[in-house]
Each structure stands twice: as structure tokens, then as C-alpha cells.
């Protein structure tokens, strides 16, 4: 039997295909990934789930060579704007962590990868963006 899998964060949905789900303010359409008390833009308190487009553009990045102990380096930290206008923070994956390989404005798409298992063998799955 395949090991159980859980998403690293609750806004990553693994089924049927991996995708992100934002909370969209029903008042102004602002999108958030965290548990909300109210909308930071308009103050409304009602939200609806919204699937986020898996494709987008790399709007900013940094190649991290020094990080806290236990975090493997180098890695590419990225800010992505998806094609439906949602902003996402993640890593660029499946790509050399060099300024030659990573370019501002490059097209990327959502990808998932395992980040370890707990004592029951449940695997955590993270998401990143890979070049297309």
C-alpha cells in the first residue's frame, strides 16, 4: 500500500491533481492563503474557496546560500504571479540554483515533491514551481 500523504500546508490540495486553493473575499476578491479573521483590503468577513491557476510568471527570486541550520542550501526562493493574478511564495524546483538558470519573468508551473515522513510513515508533500 502506498504511504499516506499530507500536504505541507493546508492550502495545497493534492487531489485530483495538485493545486492551490485560496480564500477569496466575497466582497472585493482579494485572495489569501492563511486562516482569516477578516479581509485586509475591505474588512468583509466572508470568504469562498478559489482554485489558483497552476501556471504563472517568476516575478522575483533570490538564491539562498545561508539559511538557518537544517535547511539545505542553495535553494531558489521565488515570488510567482499566477496567470489568474494570484501571488504565491515558494521555491523554484527542478532547476539549477544559479543566476544563469533562473531568470526574471520566466514561465513556471506548479510541481510537488516529498519533504519527509513522520513516525507513522505519512509523507509530507510540498509545492514549488518549475520552469516550463
Amino acid at each position, binding site marked *: 500500500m502506498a504511504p499516506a500523504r*499530507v*500536504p*505541507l*500546508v*493546508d*492550502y495545497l490540495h493534492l487531489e485530483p491533481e495538485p493545486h492551490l486553493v485560496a480564500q477569496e473575499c466575497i466582497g472585493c476578491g*482579494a*485572495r*489569501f*492563503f*492563511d*486562516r482569516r479573521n477578516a479581509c*485586509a*483590503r475591505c474588512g468583509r468577513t466572508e470568504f469562498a474557496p478559489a482554485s489558483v491557476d497552476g501556471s504563472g510568471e517568476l*516575478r*522575483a*527570486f*533570490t*538564491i*539562498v*546560500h*545561508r*539559511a*538557518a*541550520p*537544517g*535547511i*539545505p*542550501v542553495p*535553494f531558489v*526562493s*521565488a*515570488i510567482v*504571479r499566477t496567470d489568474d*493574478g494570484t*501571488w*504565491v*511564495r*515558494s*521555491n523554484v524546483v527542478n532547476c539549477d540554483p544559479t*543566476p544563469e538558470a533562473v531568470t*526574471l*519573468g520566466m514561465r513556471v508551473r506548479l510541481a510537488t515533491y516529498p*519533504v*519527509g515522513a*513522520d*513516525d*507513522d510513515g*505519512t509523507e*509530507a508533500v*510540498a*509545492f*514549488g514551481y518549475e520552469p516550463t
Partner: protein
Amino acid sequence: MAARISPDSVWVLGAHMTRFARYPDRDLIDLASESALGALADGEVTVADIDVLACGALFQASGAVGQRLQKQIGQTGVPVYNVANACATGATAIRTVMMAIRAGEAEIGLAVGAEQMGKMGLLGGGATKKEKKVFEPSGRYGAVTGVDGHLGTETMPGVFAQAGMAYAHDHDGVGFEQFARVAYKNHLHSTLNPLAQYQKEFSMEEILESPMMSYPNTLLMCCPTGDGAAAVVLVSGERLASMPAHVRKRAVKVSASVLTSDPFTEDCQVQPDVNTLTRNAADQAYEAAGVGPADLDLVELHDCFATAELIHYDNLGLCEPGGAGDFIDSGGPFRDGTTPVNVSGGLISKGHPIGATGVANVYEVTTHLRGEAGDRQVEGATVGLAHVIGLASACGVHILEKAAA
């Protein structure tokens, strides 16, 4: 241009900063005391003249630092405000005293910023939870384990690198070399400032090839951690007018004192927006002071990382919109350029003991406007701007003007 004393204006009467350094044999209150007593002496007043004290020390924000300072320099019973606002903590202390004076509750106030960080190392990030035996979602993102390093970076050099790269995405002529040139300038400037933590020039090659922290920020493009304090005494125009001529002559007008937080923007949920609140603060400050960027003889801005300084050229209106790369390449912010920026050496080389920073910037501008900055003096300076930003975010901008002769 020189400012005259109106009753409702507020002025810097005295100012002081310690050298930024590492002081393992002194404590935070030693540093705060040195600056507080220094600023009082500089303004020719005593602690008995002070109506209000605001004190900022970020990493000891719950430690009643203001009252502990009073217990060393004078327990007069006046109100104390201990403030914390990330890297804008010092500017917030100044602004707190400003508000007390403007509200008519005080005539003379003391703002102190201090910090003791030692060799604290990399700030931000690494808030990894202890690996749980069983993955269970927790927190506002329902994370089953730490996300730093998986979902981007939370380290300060990385976060500010991304802010710079977002600017590079939107504007031509900005890249690794332009960011490095900012650090080259500030290290060069620091060689003239005896109060700077580091006073050493580095070549462009040395900066580009120093250890990479978070591309494009190399080690020499990042501010150090350190210890230090700064203080200013502020006075109402009404009270200043009754003071001796030689005191009035050295007073420096606070023509604008602004504090902003970050308004909602589309990308602010995933990356700190350090731009919009700085632009808002600058706009408000220029309007309040009745000056524009072209009037500024010097600027001390928040260069926690080289990438940050470059984008603030644009945010503060020091260059053409989108033209921050050209501005540094053309030498505009060098001490002999059109708008000298960070002639103190900036946070990159002068140092960044967090609570002290926003007061030290006002000290620096004040010292130039008085014509007392020694080897690093910007000749004939009459108007200057001091800017700080702390993530979360808070931005402080003060515009200062030399007194009329």
C-alpha cells in the same frame, strides 16, 4: 533655505550617538545612558528639563528600558514610553516625543534608541518547528512542519534580495553590479566616519566575490549586527525662542515627522511590500515640509541590504521613476553626487543596532546641518531626510532643516 522659529514648530536641541560597534563589556543601559547624557549636554539642558521620555530597544522591548535608563540618569517621574516597531523603533521613539510636544503635553522631550545584539548572525527564518512524530496541521497555514526553505525564504538577506529583484523585473538597467555599487559607495563613505562600526573601503571585485548570502546580496552587501545607542532632545519652538542665541543657532527644525504602515497591495500577502509605505511616507513628509527631493542636500536611508537602498532611491523620489540603476551608475548618491545618500556609511558599514538606527540617522543629518560633521561634512547642507523601515511594516521619515542664522 533656512528655517525660522515658529511657536508650534519642533526642533532638535541636542543629539548624540555612540560609535556603533560590539561592546561585550557594557550593557544596554550603559549605551543608552551615554547617548542620553550626551544629547542632554549637547542641548545644554539636564534631565530635570525633560518632560517626556521615549525609549526604543527592540530585542528588550518588554524590559522597561526607559525606566531602567531613568534609574541611571535621573528618576524625575515624567511619563516614559517604551516603544517597539521593528527596524523603525528609533524613529517611532522620536515620533512619540514629537506627538507629545505637538499635543502641548511637553515642551522638551528625550528620544533614545539602543540595542545590544553582539554577533547575532542571520536574522529571520529558521522558525522550524520541532519535527513532530505525527504530522498534524497547525497555525494559520495549517503547516505540518516548518516551511522556511520549502516555501521560499524567511531570512532578511533573502527577503530584501527578492524586493530588489522585483524592482529589477520591472525596470531595465538593474542587476548584480548596480546592487554591488551601492555597497561599494557605503563602504567608501564609512572611511570618513569615526562612529561607523566598519571603516574600510572594498573594491567592486571584493564585494561581488565575497561570500554569497542570498543572491544578489553578498556578505559585503549586508549590514552587520552590533551594539550602539543614539539620542535626541526635542524642544517646542515656543520654548526654543526663549533660549540663548548660540543654542538657537545649533537647533535643527523637524520640518516633517511621518510614520506609515503598509496598505493592502496584491502581493503583500506573500512578500513584504517595502515600497508603498515608503512612498506614502515620503509624499506626506515632502508635503508637510514644503520641500521636494531636489531640495535635499543629504539623505540617510535604510540600507539594511544593498538591494533595499537601490529601490528606496525610487521610493523617495531621488531618481527618475524606474531609474534607480542609472542613478547609482551615474554617481548620483555618492558624497560628491547630486543627492548624497548615506554619507555615514549607512547600515551596511556604519552598522545597524536596530533600536538605535532610526535615531542615529536623525543624529547624522542634524550633525551635517549644523556643519559639525568633520571629514564627512556635506558642505553647505541645509535640508536633509532620514528614512527607516521595519518589516511588518513600519516606515519613518523625518525631514530636517538648518536654523536661520
